């Protein structure tokens, strides 16, 4: 009884709290709610920011529209005149070239042209919808004038007759507007959305006269407001003239129901003019022509749809604005050269999804959704629907899918019977889908910052998007095309080339994209400029397949397929027998790298099928692989290094009766994780050997002494023991005991260099887990001296980094390098970039690796880079954008960080910034799965100075990238300016080589030979050295002048023998005290007034430089002070 009562009470309490339905507390991902809300708040803010003040920005627009209407109304109608006569007369009288679409009407065309007053005026588009945003390039106000039905004949849909009439109509209007308003507006022609069939009139008000004219006319225009334009009139003439330029586009359109729609199905051929007439047998459809014609009468209908949707769904305008920004950042727009998917298509798509598109003809989306939800839904829709593969039809039950099928992408609106994507090409549809997929991935990624990649970052730079870019320049492209579809020759050419390249690349390419040159407007008194003869095409690789050298075709037995294969590849195809016994048709490419193979395939396929010769195809792009000679052999070298490490591990583990059990051996050098700039080279080819650092871990033991110094000594004992055992066990091994650059203390003292006679070299260090415990104990021991505890803390951090974090880091990087193909080479290239800008002394290699890994793991707004070029350029873009002042970098490589961990890193960053607002200590916060505190990677730098220099350099590189659209000189990215430093130390390469030679020989074993070319080094392997001489010098200088100079240097290559330095900016003139940390001298000027403030000192620059000159000796060739 009682339990019953209790249960009931429990039941009641549930709906009372009601939070179960809203937020699922049980779910591990309840944090998603919070990140989602950040996104919503940010988009709200974005919308607020992006919305334009119509009164301010577009003042006087309505007024102009009214005057325009009056002007057009005043044009005198005239009766039908034969087309040739009308054209000649008109062009002569008005000095306006009628913008007839190609081909121009024949001289003997039988039909007549007339002009009648427009049946209707209407303002359409985003001006009325109020969905313009600040960042769009130009504000266009679309005004449609409907041509009266009486002007047309039934047969006008054929043979371009409608379009000729339309062109004449717009030219006639242009003539009259020019006469009436020519003084206050500039007139030009343009193609609507770059559709060559649809010339429109563009009016640009002249700014000076704008103001007074507007005030003059305002009382008059009030009376003549009509239709939609009055609705949108929010005219305001009081404000100052705007800076935002806007244009009025005058678009003639057809009355509804002018032509029967069943004649204009995509499969029917309505355009029988021109060449097609000769070959009656081939009568392919003209989907583009038909869609264009159909779209002519849908302006008003879509306007109604959008206005209706706006009242139905309050969030619709905002969703449109978000869509507009999203598309704009990805370079999409309504015009053909921008992909043919712009704001209008987006709005229409959402409007239709709000009405139909769901199951059983119901609405796919609810009108109750918010703007962000609508946006997400729309992107999701774009990402999941492949318009190329299968036509998408809203309310599919009513329409037969096959009847609307075209070769291009289709999104069919059954009510207006129109393919909304008619301006899109197959490649732009694929690109759009890729972008949508990337955004969907991003929105689903809990960890990523969603807002910035979605809306802020501009992602249309071709060099960052595509792995290879080519230019085709051929007279074929400009040649008037034979196709009746009137897409224009460049488009026709691209379609053909696209089909061929798509087939040629197969699974090697994710995307083959064509970029057509944009069409510009032209003045009314001239004819349209000639077609360009250039198209660009770009490829996104599939990184695993692009580097494949062999193209496998069908087996020889399948004759049909084999023949087709042969037909496609021509004489390149050959029959081969493979190891498994199969006999296949195949093509072998002679190039090795992915970019080169891509080039070779393109050249071959285009030459075979389109007769594009070598000179007409130019590979563009950045050509980055040549900068540090990345080759396909490098991976083999890295693999060999890893194999040799396994040999070492085997040899060490096989040693008998070691006093302690070995737990683990790990290699921690960049060379052992596919990440060193130069691949490891086996053998003694160079004058020096670069050993790979190896850490050795013993099982925990209580035998270690409980004293840090003693532990270090014991480690030496161990190393000597290893030395004995190894050399005894293997006669191919030579060992050298080496000392770290340290005095006896609590840190590691020595290492053992193990050199195999095949050239593999390792540097063995021992880790003792007791150290950490003792250090920890010292840190927490309050009775100890302050500086002892500080030192212990520093040592603990270093030891944790080297023995705990670094092996895990190496493991991570090596794993990802094998998994993500271009990662290794990208890391190496980025390291080279840091090197050539002399930043590698401040930013550690591991940190750089994490930067690049981040770009690969969170590639938004792109997808994971598929080549070195895109990986590198996107890394630069990330570096330029990363605001390390406020944001930590969180790279969750193992996907183990929870949102709590993330927010812990964030709050610790905030805490540090509060405690140290000048960022004297921790500048960058980099947290990974292995190092979740965010401090491990950046404990030893970079300083604020170096970090901001990095950001500045990356920004400059990105600017260069933006300015150079398709091709980029890679040298410009790697060239560094030496004028930014205060002092330059030019090193002498000769002295450097001499040191290297001396250091790598044993002074005891020196012998003198009779023969000059047989000195003591001949035939001997070089000995391992502790560090590169430049490193030694730089470390010493850094130690001595830590507070005086900041040194900048790159790698240790001989050609980069300049160390740059700047005087520490903190060193101002100051009063003398005994603790000053720099070399100072008394300031001369103060000699006169011997007052209390007399002893003012400053840095003694020449004395410091002379000291350095003495320290460097002959190694420093020249010290140059930069003005």
């Amino acid at each position, binding site marked *: 009884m009682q339990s019953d009562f209790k249960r009931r009470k429990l039941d009641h309490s549930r709906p009372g709290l009601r939070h179960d339905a809203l937020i699922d507390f049980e779910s591990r991902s309840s944090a998603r709610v919070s990140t989602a809300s950040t996104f919503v708040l940010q988009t709200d803010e974005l919308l607020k920011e992006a919305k334009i003040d119509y009164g301010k920005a577009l003042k006087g627009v309505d007024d102009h529209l009214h005057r325009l209407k009056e002007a057009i109304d005043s044009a005198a109608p005239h009766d039908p005149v034969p087309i040739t006569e009308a054209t000649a007369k008109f062009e002569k009288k008005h000095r306006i070239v009628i913008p007839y679409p190609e081909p121009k009407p024949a001289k003997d065309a039988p039909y007549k042209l007339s002009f009648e007053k427009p049946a209707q005026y209407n303002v359409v588009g985003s001006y009325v919808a109020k969905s313009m945003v600040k960042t769009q390039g130009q504000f266009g106000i679309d005004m449609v004038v409907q041509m009266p039905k009486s002007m047309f004949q039934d047969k006008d849909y054929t043979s371009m007759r409608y379009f000729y009439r339309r062109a004449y109509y717009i030219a006639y209007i242009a003539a009259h507007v020019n006469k009436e308003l020519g003084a206050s507006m500039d007139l030009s022609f343009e193609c609507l959305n770059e559709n060559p069939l649809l010339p429109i009139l563009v009016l640009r008000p002249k700014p000076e006269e704008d103001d007074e004219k507007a005030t003059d006319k305002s009382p008059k225009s009030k009376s003549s407001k009509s239709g939609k334009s009055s609705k949108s009139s929010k005219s305001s003439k009081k404000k100052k003239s705007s800076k935002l330029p806007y244009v009025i586009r005058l678009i003639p359109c057809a009355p509804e129901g002018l032509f029967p729609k069943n004649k204009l199905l995509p499969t029917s051929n309505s355009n029988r003019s021109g060449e097609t007439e000769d070959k009656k047998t081939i009568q392919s459809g003209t989907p583009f022509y038909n869609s264009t014609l159909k779209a002519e009468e849908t302006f008003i209908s879509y306007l109604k749809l959008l206005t209706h949707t706006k009242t139905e769904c309050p969030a619709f305008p905002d969703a449109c604005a978000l869509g507009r920004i999203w598309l704009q950042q990805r370079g999409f727009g309504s015009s053909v050269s921008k992909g043919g998917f712009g704001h209008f298509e987006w709005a229409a798509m959402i409007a239709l999804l709000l009405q139909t598109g769901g199951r059983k003809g119901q609405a796919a989306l609810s009108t109750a959704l918010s703007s962000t939800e609508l946006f997400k839904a729309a992107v999701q829709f774009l990402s999941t629907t492949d318009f190329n593969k299968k036509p998408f039809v809203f309310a599919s039950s009513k329409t037969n899918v096959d009847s609307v099928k075209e070769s291009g992408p289709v999104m069919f609106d059954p009510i207006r019977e129109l393919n909304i994507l008619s301006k899109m090409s197959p490649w732009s549809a694929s690109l759009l889908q890729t972008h949508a997929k990337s955004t969907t991935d991003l929105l689903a990624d809990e960890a990523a910052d969603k807002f910035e990649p979605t809306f802020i970052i501009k992602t249309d730079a071709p060099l960052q998007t595509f792995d290879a870019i080519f230019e085709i320049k051929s007279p074929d492209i400009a040649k008037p095309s034979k196709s009746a579809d009137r897409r224009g020759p460049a488009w026709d050419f691209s379609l053909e080339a696209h089909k061929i390249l798509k087939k040629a690349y197969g699974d090697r390419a994710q995307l083959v994209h064509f970029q057509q040159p944009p069409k510009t407007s032209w003045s009314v008194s001239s004819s349209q400029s000639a077609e360009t003869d250039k198209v660009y095409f770009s490829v996104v690789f599939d990184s695993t397949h692009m580097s494949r050298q062999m193209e496998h075709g069908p087996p020889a037995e399948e004759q049909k397929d084999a023949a087709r294969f042969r037909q496609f590849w021509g004489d390149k195809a050959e029959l081969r027998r493979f190891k498994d016994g199969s006999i296949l048709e195949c093509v072998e490419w002679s190039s090795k790298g992915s970019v080169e193979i891509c080039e070779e395939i393109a050249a071959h396929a285009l030459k075979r099928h389109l007769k594009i010769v070598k000179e007409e195809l130019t590979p563009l792009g950045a050509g980055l692989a040549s900068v540090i000679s990345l080759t396909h052999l490098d991976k083999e070298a890295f693999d060999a290094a890893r194999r040799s490490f396994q040999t070492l591990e085997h040899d060490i583990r096989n040693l008998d009766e070691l006093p302690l059990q070995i737990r683990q051996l790990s290699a921690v050098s960049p060379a052992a994780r596919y990440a060193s700039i130069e691949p490891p080279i086996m053998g003694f080819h160079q004058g020096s050997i670069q050993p790979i650092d190896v850490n050795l871990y013993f099982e925990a033991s209580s035998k270690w002494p409980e*004293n840090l110094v003693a532990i270090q000594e014991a480690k030496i004992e161990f190393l000597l023991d290893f030395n004995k055992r190894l050399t005894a066990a293997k006669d191919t091994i030579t060992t050298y005991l080496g000392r770290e650059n340290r005095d006896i203390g609590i840190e590691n003292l020595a290492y053992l260099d193990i050199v195999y006679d095949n050239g593999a070299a390792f540097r063995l260090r021992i880790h003792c887990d007791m150290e950490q415990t003792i250090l920890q104990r010292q840190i927490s021991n309050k009775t100890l001296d302050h500086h002892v505890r500080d030192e212990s803390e520093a040592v603990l951090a270093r030891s944790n980094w080297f023995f705990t974090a670094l092996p895990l880091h190496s493991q991570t990087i090596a794993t990802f390098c094998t998994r993500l193909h271009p990662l290794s080479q990208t890391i190496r290239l980025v390291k080279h970039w840091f090197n050539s800008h002399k930043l590698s002394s401040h930013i550690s290699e591991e940190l750089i690796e994490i930067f690049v890994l981040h770009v690969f793991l969170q590639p938004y707004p792109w997808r994971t880079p598929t080549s070195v070029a895109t990986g590198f350029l996107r890394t630069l873009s990330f570096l330029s954008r990363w605001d390390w002042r406020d944001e930590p970098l969180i790279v969750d490589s193992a996907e183990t960080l929870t949102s709590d961990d993330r927010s812990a890193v964030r709050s610790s960053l905030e805490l540090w910034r509060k405690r140290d607002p000048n960022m004297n200590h921790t500048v960058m916060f980099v947290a990974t799965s292995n190092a979740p505190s965010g401090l491990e990677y950046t404990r030893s730098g970079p300083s604020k100075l170096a970090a901001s220099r990095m950001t500045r350099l990356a920004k400059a590189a990105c600017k260069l990238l933006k300015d150079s659209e398709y091709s980029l000189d890679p040298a410009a990215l790697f060239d560094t300016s030496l004028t930014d430093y205060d002092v330059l130390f030019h090193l002498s390469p000769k002295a450097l080589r001499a*040191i290297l030679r001396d250091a790598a020989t044993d002074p005891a074993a020196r012998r003198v030979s009779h023969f000059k070319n047989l000195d003591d080094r001949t035939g001997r392997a070089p000995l391992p050295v502790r560090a590169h001489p430049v490193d030694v010098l730089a470390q010493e200088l850094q130690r001595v002048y830590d507070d005086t100079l900041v040194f900048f240097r790159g790698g240790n290559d001989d050609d980069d023998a300049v160390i740059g330095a700047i005087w520490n900016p903190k060193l101002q003139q100051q009063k003398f005290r005994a603790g000053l940390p720099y070399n100072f001298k008394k300031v001369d000027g103060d000699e006169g007034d011997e007052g209390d403030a007399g002893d003012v000192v400053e840095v003694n620059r020449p004395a410091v430089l002379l000291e350095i000159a003495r320290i460097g000796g002959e190694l420093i060739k020249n010290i140059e002070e930069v003005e």
Partner: protein
Amino acid sequence: MAHTEETSDQFAILPIEIPGTSSYPETAIHEVRVRRNAPKIPTANDSRSLFLKNIPADSTGPHFRGVFTELVGAGRFESITFEDETKTSLTIDPAAATKVTALTRKRKHGEAEEEERAREEQALQLPQIWSRRLQRSSSTAVVLLADEKSVQQVLKAITKVHKSKKYPSWGSNLADEVPALGSAWIASHLQLSRVDKQATQKAVHAFFNAFNRKEKEAVELSKRLRNEPDDDGFVTVVRGGRVAPASRNEAEEAKRKMYERDTKKKSETQDFYRFQLREKRKAEQAVLLSRFEEDRRKVNAMRQQRGKFRPET
């Protein structure tokens, strides 16, 4: 501030002329500050020594011998001790020893014992890896002169130098007294870094001889302390008795285990009563709310920074 002025008054400026080199062919005047040495803990030699600040980075004894010879003639300069040489010696005693010795009164070392210690310390030094060490920029040194009179003479000579403008020069007449810097220095360092195995082995053995001996002494000492009452009749309690002394690690391990057991026990009794569940839910709600607030704060902060909401063009 007044304090620093006071000290600065005592410093005299000793200008040293630094000759140019081929890579930087300009002469410069290096200013070393000199005063009577007055350390906080006075020593016997204070009266005949000088404190130097802002010495050149490549300073060595012979360098300063040369400078002082130019100032006051030969025979006055005895020795120089640089900043990094006066570092306190390391605590290389075993953990047990440090503990125990802290309990006992400091033993006075006899002369012989002191000597023994020094010899030991010498033996456990690892082979040197630098032919010459650099001083940190603007570091200090203490110069020991022949007698008190020399100190005065030097100070007097410094004031005279200011008038005559004939500054002592740096590094002249050194001959081969100091190892060269530059590439020879780096090359020799790199060669020395590949240390001799035998010598190192010897040093390590010396170290452990001393270490083990100390450890043994400490054990004995603690044993003694356990039994002997001190002057006041108290017996010191030290770890270890009939059984072998527990290692510190084991103790910590045991502590950790106990802590773990406690937390486990605690966690088992969670989510048991209804009030616990309710409180938990409330807490979660509060977290969500605070997170929302945080988001809003973040967005507000972003708004403050201009351009965060403006799409790039």
